């Protein structure tokens, strides 16, 4: 589903102008990473997609819906938002019940709910934990429970707020493949992340925000090479990009394979 943001401005009740005219278009099947320092407006922006915030000026459309005309609960049918802190969501006695909560709110029948719970658990690798109390799991596993709860909603748009915090390599890998799978299903995946290496590897498109504005928006390989612009919002290029740039390349390789290509094509003769 398309997400369309037009000249979005937002001022918090405290008077802080968090967004100063953001315009973005995201199409179905796109995976976009949003990066930038704390306070750049990333979370403020994505909260508009689920209707938790209403524009002060400009508008946001999810498909054919103008978010200003829909409630949060209504938008939850189209936008799945995975919050950063799983403990802000978990209250059920078992993992299974927790994941069933969202689909039940959507009014789905019991057999459909059960099917979705099973599928979501399979995707996050917690099928054997279905009857455990969420708080018996490690915090990083609870993050997967929260993710599964949103996957079970099967929304066309999925928003992930810092999905890899605290995860080990296997966890990051699993989240990355979930992003790819969602993308393959034609969903629009939007992630806010400080883990720039994760962004480079899993997101073909990167949006860089600073001071309530979009500073850069484009292919990861181009955007992540612009070290001076990234520095304005306290973002460092990913590890391989930094290496390639030091060697004289102009593009940012997103993974080892691209790195080797970039080195062979762009590194000047020594």
């Amino acid at each position, binding site marked *: 589903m398309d997400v369309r943001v037009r000249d979005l401005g937002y001022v918090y009740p405290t008077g802080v102008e968090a967004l100063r005219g953001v315009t973005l278009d995201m199409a179905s099947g796109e995976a976009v990473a949003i990066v930038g320092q704390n306070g750049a407006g990333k979370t403020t922006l994505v909260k508009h997609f689920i209707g*938790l915030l209403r524009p002060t000026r400009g508008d946001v459309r999810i498909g054919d819906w103008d978010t200003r005309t829909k409630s949060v609960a209504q938008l939850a049918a189209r*936008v799945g938002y995975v*919050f950063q802190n799983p*403990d*802000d969501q978990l209250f059920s006695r078992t993992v299974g019940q927790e994941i069933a909560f969202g689909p039940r709110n959507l009014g789905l029948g019991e057999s459909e709910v059960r099917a979705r719970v099973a599928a979501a658990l399979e995707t996050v690798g917690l099928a054997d934990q279905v009857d455990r109390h969420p708080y018996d799991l490690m915090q990083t596993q609870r993050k997967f429970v929260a993710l599964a709860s949103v996957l079970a909603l099967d929304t066309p748009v999925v928003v992930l707020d810092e999905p890899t915090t605290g995860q080990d390599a296997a966890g990051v890998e699993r989240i990355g493949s979930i992003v790819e799978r969602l993308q393959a299903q034609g969903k629009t995946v939007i992630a806010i992340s400080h883990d720039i290496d994760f962004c480079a590897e899993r997101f073909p498109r990167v949006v860089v925000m600073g001071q309530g504005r979009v500073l850069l928006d484009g292919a990861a390989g181009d955007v992540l090479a612009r070290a001076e612009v990234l520095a304005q919002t306290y973002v460092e290029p990913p590890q391989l990009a930094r290496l390639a740039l030091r060697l004289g390349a102009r593009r940012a390789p997103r993974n080892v394979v691209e790195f080797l290509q970039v080195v062979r094509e762009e590194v000047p003769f020594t």
Partner: protein
Amino acid sequence: MLIYLTGRSGRLHGLNPITKVMLTLVVIVCGFVLPGVWATWLVFGSIVLPLSLWGGIAGPLLRAVARITLPFAISLFVIQGLFFPGGTPILSLGPVSFKAEGLQFALLFASRLFLLSSAFMLLLLTTHPGLLMLALVQRGLPANLAYIIVATLQIVPRFQARAASILDAQRARGLETTGSLVRRLRAIVPLVGPLVLGSLVDVEERAIAIEARGFSLRRPKTSLIDIPDSRAEKGLRRGLIIAPVALIVARLAGWLR
């Protein structure tokens, strides 16, 4: 989250917290032991009000006390006035009438409530909670209790912020929080549950953090902050004990009607 106001004239602020605690207690005892509504207002007018003016906090104090006592006072007057058993009616409104004894009772109660809250406001507006707790701990208040009170004060705003995050997170999963009563009741567990469960985790971590800094060590604690005190204040505190003790004795001996 602190009631404490900074930046005023500072006269009351600079007093030792225990002095102020004693003042509060003296005011309360006097106001409750002396009979009659007039005594309560006498104590307020001769002690609390002048002190608050001297300390530069009269305005905020009166506003805070009014906010606390007015709702109570109004309902007291209505309830006691209308439903005091077997009283003499003095004002009729159709089928119901206000009874004199009821209104008198309400007046006494409300006046004492006014005095009580103004006495506490005098203390709380001019005393930093950290200093107050430190002074009490130095005089024997259990350190654990003092810790709980102060930590609660500082962490409650965070609680509120978390509650707001939880509300957002659950709404984003389709939880309806407005509308019928049934709907709103159903929303309680998903909203309160994470708050409580998450807090248990936080509490355990914080317990480890303070333990790692020797909170449970069984030796006398020292303090970075030196609480101001003076001989004059020490003398005042000794003197302040006399009045309430004398009043209580007088009351028990039946010398006060």
